[in-house]
């Protein structure tokens, strides 16, 4: 079984392009052009140049010795937290802003939850001198104030999404509505491996630099490209898709996806889509979706705004359904503890999203010879408030 997208945008049973006719020309334009644009040598040259000199790639693959000792395996951290703007999100926005330029678009819109993707989008728009509007749920704007101001300093307009639950899902709805109303001059930079085809595959490809680098770095350090495990947290799933991408079809590598269980999967306050979701359609793709029995989308909960999404990228729904990836879920409390543990054993305060990936180590057992790579997708600066509020350190 090969993990790959088909020409309709499906990974097995999941994916597709469930969009209103108003967006059909936009999506077609992207679908018809993006592969050719992205594969062109001048695009690759510009993309790689920006990843190196602007983002700061390659990011280190760091052997976490004290953490390794604690869990009895050889644990490496892929340091996406060291990317410019503080997380992996910028890998995708650099790619998409170049694509937007090639498509002749003068304006960019984006949605954001915690504000990381919004900041990464505002950053590349500033870099290229392109007008930028970021939709953000009114509730998220209030709880992620520093990121709102970062976007504004960078020159972006932050528009509150005031519909529905006023969080990430609604910001995405508003961005899509904006695109419907402005179809010709605007490019929509989706921040995760979600949305209608070709977005999930396109975003995954831009993020796949993560696993490409892991392979090269492991080869150098260990004399082999493949670890035994690759572990990443999953909200929509862009950092996981990037970390898994070049390992999708390497069967000797166990892929591990970690979802946010919030207060617990049976409390009604969780964001663990593979546990609580059923197949459904949201934001243009068929995927696993948290919903009522009548098909209304349910508002998820997690302490981490970046994992607080009722769906999951279609590729992850496929990895789950086929058993290619093993899924764990981790509560707020477990994630926060893991964040503090990493801070104290390795001197790295992780983003609360990334802390979920580390908490899964407690649910796994290893042989001492196992090589484990954890994608440390973002740094914890933005979450200081959350750590302080939690307070148990």
């Amino acid at each position, binding site marked *: 079984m090969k993990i790959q997208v088909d020409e309709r945008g499906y990974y097995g049973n999941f994916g597709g*392009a*469930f969009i*209103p006719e108003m967006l059909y020309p936009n999506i077609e334009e992207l679908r018809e052009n993006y592969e050719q644009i992205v594969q062109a040598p001048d695009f690759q040259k510009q993309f790689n140049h920006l990843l190196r000199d602007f983002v700061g790639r390659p990011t280190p693959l760091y052997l976490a010795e004290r953490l390794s000792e604690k869990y009895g395996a050889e644990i490496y951290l892929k340091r996406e937290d060291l990317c410019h703007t503080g997380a992996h999100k910028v890998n995708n926005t650099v790619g998409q802003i170049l694509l937007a330029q090639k498509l002749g678009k003068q304006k960019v819109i984006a949605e954001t939850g915690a504000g990381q993707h919004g900041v990464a989008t505002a950053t590349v728009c500033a870099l290229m001198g392109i007008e930028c509007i970021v939709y953000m749920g009114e509730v998220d704007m209030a709880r992620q104030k520093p990121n709102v101001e970062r976007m504004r300093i960078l020159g972006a307009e932050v528009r509150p999404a005031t519909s529905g639950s006023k969080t990430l899902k609604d910001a995405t709805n508003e961005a899509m509505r904006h695109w419907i109303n402005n179809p010709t001059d605007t490019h929509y930079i989706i921040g995760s491996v979600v949305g209608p085809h070709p977005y999930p595959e396109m975003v995954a490809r831009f993020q796949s630099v993560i696993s490409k680098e892991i392979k090269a770095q492991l080869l150098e350090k260990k004399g082999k490209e493949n670890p035994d495990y690759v572990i990443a947290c999953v909200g929509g799933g862009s950092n996981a898709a990037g970390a898994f991408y070049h390992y999708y079809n390497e069967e000797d590598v166990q892929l591990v996806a970690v979802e946010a269980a919030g207060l617990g999967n049976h409390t009604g306050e969780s964001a663990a889509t593979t546990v609580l979701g059923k197949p459904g359609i949201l934001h243009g793709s068929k995927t696993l979706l948290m919903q009522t029995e009548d098909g209304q989308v349910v508002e998820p909960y997690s302490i981490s705004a970046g994992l607080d999404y009722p769906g999951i990228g279609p590729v992850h729904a496929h990895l789950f359904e086929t058993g290619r990836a093993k899924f764990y879920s981790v509560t707020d409390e477990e994630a926060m503890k893991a964040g503090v543990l990493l801070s104290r054993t390795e001197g790295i305060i992780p983003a609360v999203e990334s802390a979920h990936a580390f908490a899964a180590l407690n649910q796994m057992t290893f042989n001492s010879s196992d090589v484990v790579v954890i994608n440390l997708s973002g740094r914890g600066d933005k979450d200081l408030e959350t750590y302080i509020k939690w307070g148990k350190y």
Partner: protein
Amino acid sequence: MNRIDKLFQDKKERVLNVYFTAGYPQLNDTTTILEALETSGADLIEIGIPYSDPIADGPTIQESNGVALENGMTLKVLFNQLKGIRDKVSVPIVLMGYVNPIVQFGVENFCAKCEEVGVDAVILPDLPMFEYLEIYKPMFEKHGLYNIFLITPQTSEARIRQIDENSNGFIYMVSSASTTGAKTSISLDQSDYFARVKNMNLKNPTLIGFGISNAETFDKACENANGAIIGSAFIKAISEEGNLEEKISGFVRSVIG
């Protein structure tokens, strides 16, 4: 014969299609609104199935969706309300909604219920054409249900032809690049698009929707198509204070004279 075909056989111009959201303003207003619309002169009625994430809709219809869901509207409730509706209402009824609630209800089951209560067609804006053709079409046909496609000013001529080929009933012409209720007028730059579609001599009738809100815009739309669809403006009208039936007849009269 499908009621929609019968309608367009008898009436080729100034066909008025009015949209309302099921369960709004009150959960049990559905039959009252249907009857009042028919009595007032609506030729075709579109019932919106409320959804938590209606991405093609502007604020007015979003809000009515939210209220309807809070009121407890579901597909089960709606089909119960529509039982026996054909004893009271004879104009064609179209259900409009997003695809996820239909998928959860079960597509086959949904089609059977539509046939049972007398629904003539369905509009699912986020259902891609190829999904419809490959998966939904046999079930729709089995239950005599039409699928209504949308076209927009950005839809290519080749695709309009393809849509016309695969359509029954009528084609929904979205007047401009927008969500519902975003615009309250029809501008001159749309006339190119209207003329272009008119000159294609499609086999299906066309109804223009989005931005149709009053007599002036209705008349303008009717110059360019077989009729028009009003949604947001009607929702606004029934949101105001007063007797529901009087508001409905007052609104329809203000549009068609």
